[in-house]
């Protein structure tokens, strides 16, 4: 969504009228779902967190600075929502990836059933690795690799100084690498 269109929609939302909120929800539900899936690990919990985060964002819209992009602010709400859900349900990251709900992106035209199978197996192992690392590691990896955010945006979402993002990413990647090692997937 174009930044100026987004700003205009936010302005209209603030003036009242949930119908102007719909394009924003539709624009951010994809990236939001990736983040929620990365943090919650299964579709149902991710949907619950996403829905609740959109409602909370709407309720807090008066406090949102309309001159800033909506994405990082919304991801911050969503991240807190995921954490609250995990805490309140006393649940941990619950893996639900060994089915058709996740898939590896086709790696180009040279796709074959065998290659697809290998890709799926690799993706599955990757998710098992993500399951083993802490929530803090997982969320920064999701923000960087799945959402494709810049360091400054990650810092804003996580509420940490810009300078610590690289260090947090290093520890997260290191933890994932070690977890994959334990699963027999060597990146060494």
């Amino acid at each position: 969504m174009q930044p100026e269109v987004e700003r205009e929609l936010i302005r209209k939302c603030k003036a009242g009228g949930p119908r102007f909120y719909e394009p924003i929800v539709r624009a951010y539900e994809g990236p939001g779902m990736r983040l929620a899936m990365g943090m919650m690990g299964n579709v149902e919990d991710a949907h619950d967190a996403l829905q609740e985060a959109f409602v909370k964002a709407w309720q807090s819209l008066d406090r949102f600075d309309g001159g800033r992009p909506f994405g990082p602010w919304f991801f911050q709400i969503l991240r807190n929502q995921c954490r609250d859900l995990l805490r309140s349900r006393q649940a941990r990251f619950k893996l639900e990836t060994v089915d058709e709900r996740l898939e590896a992106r086709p790696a180009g035209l040279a796709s074959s059933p065998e290659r697809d199978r290998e890709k799926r197996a690799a993706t599955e192992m990757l998710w098992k690795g993500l399951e083993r690392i802490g929530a803090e590691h997982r969320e920064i990896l999701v923000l960087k690799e799945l959402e494709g955010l810049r360091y400054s945006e990650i810092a804003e979402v996580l509420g940490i100084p810009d300078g610590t993002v690289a260090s947090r990413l290093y520890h997260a990647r290191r933890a994932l690498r070690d977890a994959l090692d334990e699963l027999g997937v060597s990146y060494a």
Partner: protein
Amino acid sequence: MDYSNDDLMRYLDGEMQPGDRARFEGIVEASTELQRELALYRALKDNLQGISFAPALAGRSVWDRVNARLARPIGWVMLVIGATLWAIYGGYIYLQSAINAWEKLATSAVISGILILFATVAWERYRAWLVDPYKDVHR
């Protein structure tokens, strides 16, 4: 070698300033160990970026559920305002009617009793819900 793990991450993620980048590339060129480390993290990064959630999202927009949640408070407010206005108007008409005082008293007692019973049950249910450990469990 004069580099840190943070430098490695910044280089990998394209977050280095051009000057630092050129310096770091010089260090990479001189170290097979660092080249191996970089290749390893790059592979991990590529694999993570290869995960897609397309099937999980297909045809499952959260908008309808969000919209229902946004519209609900407006519905409640309108219902309460409407019911209150009707109750005041109905009470006024009833008190102005020619029915004798005993009948008015008895009817008022019945209505008040029903309202009190309803309010106490609703309050009890609300208190129980507050401490229900399973309130977030979805059927």
